[in-house]
């Protein structure tokens, strides 16, 4: 009587800064390790929320941006391949690449809000403002849950806030590898879980977002860190 139904796709996209500064103090290796370690947790979260079909991709940006993993991969099959750092920081190019992927098509008519996680340690070297505006003008770009993870203290937090474009969500500061791991795990599990099973939100004054739990404060505490690195 009713045609075949299907779980809605949930597109999870990593946007990783691979500029030259990410080579310093093991930052890029920490990113690789943290994302790889988050995959089993994402798979577990996906298993617990079968009504969401989680697919994962990744964009890297340095001098220009490119797809690191272009075709959406089901989380059950996802494997992280290490990225390397070198070059400048063309964030705008990355966001334009992202925007093209969020248009319909190729995005499905019906899907859960995408989760976009931007990791960066510095300041963009190209025109990113227009790219952010373009991204937010695309329906799926606007409906996405956008997370910004700052790596180290040299990050221009204003840029991440412009990307997040939600006064209720702050960039997540990661000043050492442990903090980065915690923030990446939060983005890839708590946020994923919230978006997988979203409740409707009354739109008051034109704004409403997916209800995601606010993460516990990540304190920069080198004495408690398992690593000597402080970024």
């Amino acid at each position, binding site marked *: *009587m*009713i*045609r*075949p*139904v*299907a*779980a*809605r796709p949930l597109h999870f996209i990593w946007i990783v800064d691979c500029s030259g500064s990410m080579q310093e103090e093991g930052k890029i290796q920490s990113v690789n390790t943290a994302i790889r370690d988050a995959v089993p947790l994402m798979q577990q979260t996906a298993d617990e*929320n*079968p*009504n*969401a079909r989680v697919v994962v991709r990744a964009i890297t940006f340095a001098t220009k941006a490119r797809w690191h993993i272009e075709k959406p991969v089901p989380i059950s099959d996802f494997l992280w391949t290490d990225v390397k750092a070198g070059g400048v920081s063309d964030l705008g190019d990355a966001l334009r690449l992202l925007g093209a992927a969020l248009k319909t098509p190729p995005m*499905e*008519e*019906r899907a859960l*809000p995408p989760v976009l996680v931007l990791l960066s340690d510095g300041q963009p070297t190209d025109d990113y403002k227009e790219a952010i505006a373009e991204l937010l003008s695309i*329906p799926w770009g*606007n*409906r996405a*849950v956008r997370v910004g993870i700052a790596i180290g203290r040299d990050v221009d937090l204003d840029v991440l806030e412009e990307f997040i474009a*939600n*006064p*209720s*969500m702050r960039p997540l500061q990661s000043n050492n590898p442990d903090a980065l791991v915690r923030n990446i795990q939060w983005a890839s599990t708590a946020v994923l879980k919230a978006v997988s*099973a*979203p*409740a*409707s*939100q*009354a*739109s*008051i*004054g*034109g*704004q*409403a*977002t*997916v*209800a*995601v*739990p*606010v993460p516990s404060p990540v304190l920069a505490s080198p004495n408690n860190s398992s690593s000597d690195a402080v970024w």
Partner: protein
Amino acid sequence: MAVEGWIPLGASVRGAQHVRSEKPNQDALRWAPHPTSDGGAVVPPLSLCVSDGHGSPHSFRSDAGSRFAVEVATNVLHRFLQKNEESSLIAVKRLAEETIPNRIVREWQVAVDRDLYRRPISEKERELAAATPSDDPHEASPGPGADGPGETEADTIRRAYGATLLATAISSRYILHVQVGDGDILLVSQKGEVGRAFSEDEVMPGEGTRSLCAPRAWDHFRVSFAPLEEDALGMVALSTDGLSKSFPKEADFRGSVLGIYEEIRRTSSLAVGEKLPKTLDDATRMGSGDDITLGLVVRASTVDPGARLQHGAGPALAPASFPATPGGSR
């Protein structure tokens, strides 16, 4: 001219996600008047209302909010139909647009306030309702008053009952559709064409929706009016968004609603009504995971006379879904 009858049927199922999280069904469904005991057609005036409680942490009483929404809306619409049965169609259209949204919202607010009086919000619930993004452990969305012009404390508390509303009211001469928030009202013609009473809701960030609990919620209502024409409309389908979100494409959703109409014509509304709960249950398990409610009114003259004879004793409603309460509510 004999007044044409309509056959009401439908079902509401708890979402697969809510089953896993042990939350109640947040949807509600109601007809007025109560169907006849032999399952036959109901003569207008009649109304069908569906509501979807938000279910977010801020809307922790939205199962009650949706129940109040369908009760209030069926009463308001039934009174409107009775009062305007003979009025000129132009006057009815204008009155419907100008008065129905305001009346529904005001009476819903009264129902909510009455419930608050009987069941005051606890201190913990009050903190939850008034939490700002920086200190709410459950949400990262803008807090009350942060971006809602004119939002009062009463509005903030009523957000706990937040719900959408879809409604169809049928007289002997015209049909009205009313909607605030997400969900779908589909119109199926006897020729098998499927259209929408309203265009799909504006794109909202995340999973946002318009709501009965918003300040000046009547400004966000959509009202549609049309004279009833013979040999045109075959069925009206009201569904909460859990159903449409279970289909990859709009065309699949429309095709399935058409399929239900065709099966009713091929078999009977009673037979389809009995299958609906399982059908919707399959949709939530394999599709959206959300609560799903589907309410239908079928033009009796379009159902095969042989099929009508199969109705027999018993209500046309799926008895497994609804308690036998006056007004036929879930």
